[in-house]
């Protein structure tokens, strides 16, 4: 069962042309409005970029799309079924980087990637080699044997991106992935995300970088502050 998760992600991608659909989703906590009702529709090999000022609710919307936060109104469906991170099918389809992910302080960078890759049941596909390749792709292969606490903030961001990119998925949700990256690395990340899109992966990215937005976006959703 565990060995077939990567295949399941691809299957979700193939069978659900309109992969992820959010209809009038909004979030309120008591009287505080975190997100005004918003619509988002995402198809395979498409990139939706969320824009908006700080506090407009981009991260809240990403959490709702990833199924880690229920909306107060509206609904989000993944291939026609409600999105919920507790469901295997949601976790298999969606890889999200919203805030810093969990790291083990006693594992090196490459160990983290091997661990993540192996838990997605891709043992036979040479997880170790793939982990090295991801580090190389992000130009942090020289940091493979460092521990997370030995990285600069920009290197940490690249490592977090490597963690989310190493696992199979059909939808990639990223919250301001350009944070703390220099210009060269932003360009590199844009190229990597464009390649992912070409491979059929759907992207939802909250982004403040105009150049990245222009390169990546098929659809731009401007989030209005509450």
């Amino acid at each position, binding site marked *: 069962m*565990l060995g077939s*998760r990567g295949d399941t992600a691809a299957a979700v991608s193939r069978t659900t042309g309109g992969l992820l659909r959010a209809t009038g989703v909004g979030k309120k906590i008591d009287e505080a409005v975190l997100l005004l009702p918003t619509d988002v529709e995402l198809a395979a090999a498409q990139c939706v970029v969320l824009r908006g000022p700080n506090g407009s609710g981009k991260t809240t919307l990403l959490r709702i799309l990833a199924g880690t936060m229920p909306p107060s109104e509206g609904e989000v469906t993944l291939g026609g079924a409600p999105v919920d*991170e*507790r469901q*295997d099918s949601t*976790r*298999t389809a969606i*890889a*999200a*980087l*919203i*805030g*810093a*992910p*969990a*790291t*083990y*302080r*006693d*594992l*090196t960078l*490459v*160990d983290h990637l*091997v*661990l*993540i*890759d*192996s*838990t*997605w*049941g891709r*043992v036979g596909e*040479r*997880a*170790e080699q793939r982990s090295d390749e991801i580090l190389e792709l992000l130009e942090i292969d020289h940091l493979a*044997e*460092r*521990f997370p*606490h*030995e990285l600069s903030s920009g290197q940490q961001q690249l490592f977090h991106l490597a*963690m*989310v990119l190493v*696992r199979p998925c059909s939808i990639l949700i990223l919250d301001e992935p350009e944070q703390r990256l220099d210009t060269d690395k932003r360009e590199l990340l844009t190229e990597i995300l464009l390649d992912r899109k070409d491979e059929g992966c759907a992207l939802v990215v909250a982004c403040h970088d105009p150049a990245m937005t222009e390169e990546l976006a098929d659809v731009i959703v401007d989030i209005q502050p509450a």
Partner: protein
Amino acid sequence: MSRADQQRLTQVRAAARGNRTDTSRGDALYPVYVAVIAAGAYGIPAAQQLFRSLDGRWLADEALTPAGLIVAVTLTVGLLALIRFVGRVHGPVVPPLPYVEMVVASPMPRKVTLGRQWRLSQGGSVFGGLLLGATTGAGLAIAGVASPALLLSTTVGGGLLGVLVAELWLLGQLQASSQVFKPGPRLPRGRRNALALLDITSLRRQAASNVTIGGAVLAGDLRTARLDAARPTTHARKARLKTGRPLVVIARRDLLGLRRAPGSTLYGLGFAAAGSAGLMLSLQSPHTPTVAPLLSLVLAYLGFGAWCEGLRLHADNSGTSRMLGLPYRDTAWAHLIVPVSAWVLTSVVVNAVLSLAGLAPGVAFLWNLGIAVLLAGSHLMASFRGIAPVGVFGPAGMPSMIFWYARPLLATLVVGTAMTAWAARIPVPWVAFSWLLLLAAGVVGWGLALVGKRDKRS
């Protein structure tokens, strides 16, 4: 300290106090007053009850045997090693952060600026030792285990232990400091120069950590306190995690973690071996004092816990973006593979040694399998206990907080001690073993409920 330095320091302290009067002497003496009252009201009655429950004659007989002396020396050495380790994380000379930034960083000699902090810690340690010695001596005398004349020896011994503790505590802090800067020709190594050798970076780190840990403890966020106190890993970075099936790779992760934390691995092994032996020996006679399985379980709990870092890190990671392809609960199960296997293996080896020495039969090992279930459950509870519920901040305060924090250990001690003591006293221990399994399964169920709660919250 020169007169000029003394004058400058007095001025600095006056400036830091503002217009308020100097209450530092009273502030330092108040804990002494409280400690003396607490020792008289609670310490001495508790000590005499403990010595009574230990069976005075058995204790007196055992204390003067070579085995008793070995146990006493081992415990003392263990305590002193622990004190030195504590010094590396939190030394005796940790002034408040603003004082470090504004006074210790000034050109005034460190011996002057840090002198009061050191004297307070040293004095506290010596006084604590004297009080502990006096309380122990009084407890022994009142329980009728030893003559009242022993009170003087235990008090003096406690005081000497206090001096030793203070020195080792400072040595630990000094060693943490010299990892940053080596002593140079103008700052020679040596005890006399100890305060001057403390560098600003490690003083600042310990002071900041003091604030974080203090705040985390007050807020009931003991996870933050634990992570802040832990030293970052740097060992065996060349070793790589090998891929495997999902559950196998989690177990390999934990093994690699233990390889990169040799200290925890070894102390876990020592405690687990001692606890395992103690439990198997406790079953051999109906006359074994109940305190024997109780202490063995404390050691077993600590030893098993040293091997559970993977489980704790998994619990720490709840609430963040999930990357692993295993469900949360399955990952928690997988993190128990290494500690349970290590406990079983240790018990097998210890049992073989005890069997060869004729101290316990081979079948005694089975008891530790039941204890393995109990320890797994209690460490699930401990790792996933989360942040203290708001209720513990109510009028009951600190005792509620301690009870909330100690629930996993208490569950282990209550179930394990009662069942082990019962098994030693009945002709058919299998009945007790069945109950042990049943109750341990209950503890595992409690642990899993906490795992489920964290899963939903994250």
